[in-house]
C-alpha cells in the first residue's frame, strides 16, 4: 500500500490520551532495541499492541479482512519508521495515530476521491437519528453492557462510527479529528452528537426490535 502521504510527525498527545495510554512494562526497552533492528523486540511490540491496533481497525472498517490487512500495513509501517519515534508522546498514541491515518487513506483510496470525506461520511436521511422532542421511553443509565454497545457501534453509519470511535473510544479531540478527516471542527462535533443520538435510539429498542434493526443496518 502506498503511504507517501502519511503524516509521521510526532504530535504531543492531549491529557486524555496520556491517561488512556499508560506506559507498558518492557515497552520502552523494546522500542529502543527495535530501533537498533532487534528482531525479537519487533515481535514483542507486535505482541503488545496487536489487539489494540486490530480492534481499532475493525471498529473503523467494520470488516475482518480489511482490518487484518490494515493491521499488517500499520505494523509494517511502524517497523520501517520506528526510528523517527522520539518519545514525546506515548508510543501507543503515536501508533494509533499512524493506524488511523493509514485507515483513512485506505478509505479515501477505496472510492472517496471525487467528493470530500466530509460529504461522504454524512449518512443518508434514513440513517440519521430522529429528533427527540417528546418520547418518554426507558432511560439507558445502568442498562447497557459492553456487548450491546459494541454491536450498536458496529451498526452505526460509517461516518458516525468513525467520529464516535475516534472521539469517545480513542480519546482524540475534535480539532484532531477535523484535521484527520479533513472536515471542520463543527462537523466533527455534529457527527459525534448524531452518532450518540443514533446509539441511544438503537440501545433503547426492545431486544427483538434491536436485533432486526442491527441486522438491517449491517446489510
Amino acid at each position, binding site marked *: 500500500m502506498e503511504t507517501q502521504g502519511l503524516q509521521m510527525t510526532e504530535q504531543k498527545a492531549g491529557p486524555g490520551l496520556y491517561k*488512556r495510554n499508560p506506559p507498558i512494562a*518492557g515497552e520502552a526497552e523494546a522500542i529502543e532495541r527495535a530501533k537498533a*533492528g532487534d*528482531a*525479537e523486540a*519487533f*515481535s*514483542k511490540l*507486535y*505482541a*503488545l499492541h*496487536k*489487539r*489494540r491496533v*486490530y*480492534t481499532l481497525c*475493525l*471498529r473503523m472498517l467494520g470488516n475482518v479482512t480489511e*482490518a*487484518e490487512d490494515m*493491521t*499488517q500495513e500499520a*505494523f*509494517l509501517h511502524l*517497523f*520501517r519508521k520506528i526510528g523517527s519515534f522520539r518519545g514525546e508522546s506515548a508510543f501507543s498514541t503515536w501508533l494509533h495515530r499512524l493506524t488511523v491515518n493509514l485507515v483513512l487513506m485506505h478509505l479515501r483510496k477505496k472510492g472517496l476521491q471525487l467528493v470530500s470525506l466530509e460529504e461522504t461520511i454524512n449518512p443518508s436521511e434514513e440513517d440519521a437519528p430522529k*429528533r*427527540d*422532542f*417528546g*418520547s*418518554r421511553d426507558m*432511560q*439507558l*443509565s445502568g442498562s*447497557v453492557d*459492553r456487548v450491546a*454497545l*459494541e454491536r450498536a*457501534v458496529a451498526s452505526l453509519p460509517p461516518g458516525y462510527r468513525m467520529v*464516535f470511535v475516534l472521539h*469517545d*473510544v*480513542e*480519546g482524540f479531540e*475534535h480539532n484532531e479529528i477535523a484535521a484527520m478527516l479533513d472536515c471542520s471542527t*463543527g462537523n466533527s*462535533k*455534529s457527527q*459525534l*452528537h448524531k452518532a*450518540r*443520538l443514533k*446509539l*441511544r435510539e438503537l*440501545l*433503547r429498542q426492545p431486544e427483538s426490535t434491536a436485533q432486526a434493526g442491527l441486522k438491517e443496518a449491517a446489510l
Partner: protein
Amino acid sequence: MTSHNFQPESSAPLSCAEFQEHLPDLFAAGSEGLTDDPTMLEHLKTCENCSALVRDLQYIADQARQLLEPTHEPSDDVWKKIQEGLTGDIHVASNPGKV
C-alpha cells in the same frame, strides 16, 4: 473546563428544539455540569424529556471508554504476512513474544 454561556435573544423559555440545537457544543465544551447558562439550566430543570436525553448521551459517552480495552485478536496469518513483508528489511523472529 469552562461552561459555555449562550445568550438567547430574549429571556423567553427555550423550546426543546432550541435547547437540543446547542447540545453538540455543550458536550464538546466538556464541563461537568454541562452548562451554567440560566436559560439552558431552566429548560433542563423543567423538561423531563431533554434532561433524560442529556443523561443518556452522557451515559453513552462514559460507557464508550470501556470499549478502549481491545477484545479482538488478529489471526496468526497477520504476523506471517508481516514477516514476509519485512523480508529484506530485517530478519524477524518466527513468533511474536507472548505477553
